[in-house]
């Protein structure tokens, strides 16, 4: 049988035979695990699910203080002896979706203390596609593996016995394009911020079959640009939360709620609410009459069927002297300016208007641009109070641990 590689990570590779070897020589796993090594993280996940044991993943970026706030019941990285019922690696992987394990993860903690969410593995894995055709896929892994989107990609690849290539630490676009070519990556899933950092480019690719965007608001311009780069790819935009996993998918930036889910979501004052049963278990989630307040602002496109567009996080909205500013809207307007590669709009506190809209900009070098050019361009496009007053030209945009634009 072919010794399929499950993971390429920097210079290391981890195959089906390596997995069998580990399970036949080791008799422990870590119930609460924090590691920088993707191979170790994946092996530990497989060990836990294979034996129906619970597992908790702690983001390696968490500070000691944050780890302390996680409310862990078992010590971090403490080995626990377990017995593996040895089977062929292929069988172990195809049985993962049946696991009775509980998987605990945390929100990224960028807006406060990390929230702890526990998911049943079989519920989380039940929507994965595990057809034979999927086993020929090679996934570009761009996400932090300890959060929901990263876990989804890991499980999708493992359960269908396909190959993962870790791109999470790759920062330069040339290296990313090279890895896509060298490893024959044909499935990519990433945040819109990740994709925007690949632009501008003349690179094109015929091999990639699917490009998935998630975790942040996507815009049509980006989706169309990705279709030009990855000529044969189906572009999918995903709406998912740490609390619920993946919920909706769309070909563009408008999500359609299927009739079987129509009673499970509601929109109140433009905010999306989810029925509690869609969520994992958590004592950190507050419910309102069995509804979960997502904190996501959406725009309703049609009522029947319900269609919506993701607008912003409530926590990202900037209040300038009583006027509400959506930073995504400002970033979209800025991206229209020729010569702009990427921008990050954020608030700076002040005693006059409460907040002032500011932004960092990366230019692509094709045009001469200064603060005044940008402000004057925006004057015809967006309301005066939305225009960034202080603009800095930077080399890189600050992103969160989960690869989204940092707002604060």
């Amino acid at each position: 049988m072919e010794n399929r590689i499950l993971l390429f990570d920097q210079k290391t590779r981890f195959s089906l035979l390596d997995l069998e070897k580990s399970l036949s020589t080791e008799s422990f796993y870590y119930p609460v695990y924090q590691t920088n090594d993707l191979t170790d993280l994946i092996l530990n996940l497989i060990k836990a699910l294979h034996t129906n044991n619970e597992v908790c993943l702690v983001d390696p970026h968490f500070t000691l203080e944050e780890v302390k706030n996680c409310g862990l019941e078992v010590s971090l990285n403490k080995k626990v002896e377990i017995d593996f019922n040895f089977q062929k690696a292929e069988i172990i992987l195809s049985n993962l979706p049946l696991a009775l394990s509980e998987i605990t993860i945390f929100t990224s903690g960028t807006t406060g203390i990390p929230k702890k969410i526990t998911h049943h593995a079989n519920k989380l894995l039940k929507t994965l596609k595990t057809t034979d055709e999927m086993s020929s896929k090679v996934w570009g892994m761009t996400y932090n593996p300890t959060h929901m989107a990263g876990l989804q990609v890991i499980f999708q690849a493992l359960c269908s016995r396909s190959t993962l290539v870790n791109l999470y630490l790759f920062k330069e676009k040339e290296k990313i394009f090279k890895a896509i070519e060298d490893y024959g990556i044909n499935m990519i899933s990433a945040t819109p911020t990740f994709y925007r950092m690949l632009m501008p480019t003349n690179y094109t690719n015929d091999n990639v079959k699917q490009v998935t965007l998630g975790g942040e608001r996507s815009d049509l311009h980006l989706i169309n640009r990705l279709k030009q780069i990855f000529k044969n790819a189906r572009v999918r935009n995903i709406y998912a939360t740490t609390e619920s996993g993946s919920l909706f998918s769309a070909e563009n930036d408008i999500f359609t709620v299927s009739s079987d889910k129509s009673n499970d979501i509601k929109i109140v004052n433009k905010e999306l609410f989810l029925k509690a049963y869609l969520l994992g278990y958590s004592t950190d989630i507050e419910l309102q009459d069995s509804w979960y307040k997502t904190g996501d602002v959406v725009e309703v496109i049609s009522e029947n069927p319900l269609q919506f567009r993701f607008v912003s996080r409530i926590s990202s909205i900037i209040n300038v002297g009583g006027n509400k500013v959506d930073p995504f809207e400002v970033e979209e307007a800025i991206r229209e300016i020729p010569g702009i590669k990427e921008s990050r709009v954020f608030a700076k506190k002040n005693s006059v208007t409460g907040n002032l809209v500011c932004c960092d900009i990366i230019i692509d070098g094709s045009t001469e641009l200064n603060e005044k050019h940008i402000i004057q361009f925006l004057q015809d496009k967006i309301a005066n109070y939305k225009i960034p007053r202080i603009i800095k030209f930077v080399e890189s945009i600050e992103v969160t641990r989960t690869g989204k634009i940092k707002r604060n």
Partner: protein
Amino acid sequence: MTINNLKDIINIVMSNAGLQAIGNISESTSLRTDLGFDSLKLAELTVRIEDQFGVDIFSEGIVDRVEEILNTVNSGK
């Protein structure tokens, strides 16, 4: 902070707003009456001054005249 430092910052705010730079200011110049600063321009000015001099000029109430701003920044409040 000198009066010229303040004038330079005021002129960045004026220029970004598409307004003509001012030639001179005196200690008695009023930001609102003489220069027509609205709340957004005042907010921009205070953030720019805080970035450079580490002082929030409006932390203890609204100041308006050049002399008041210089005193607030130079006393490090």
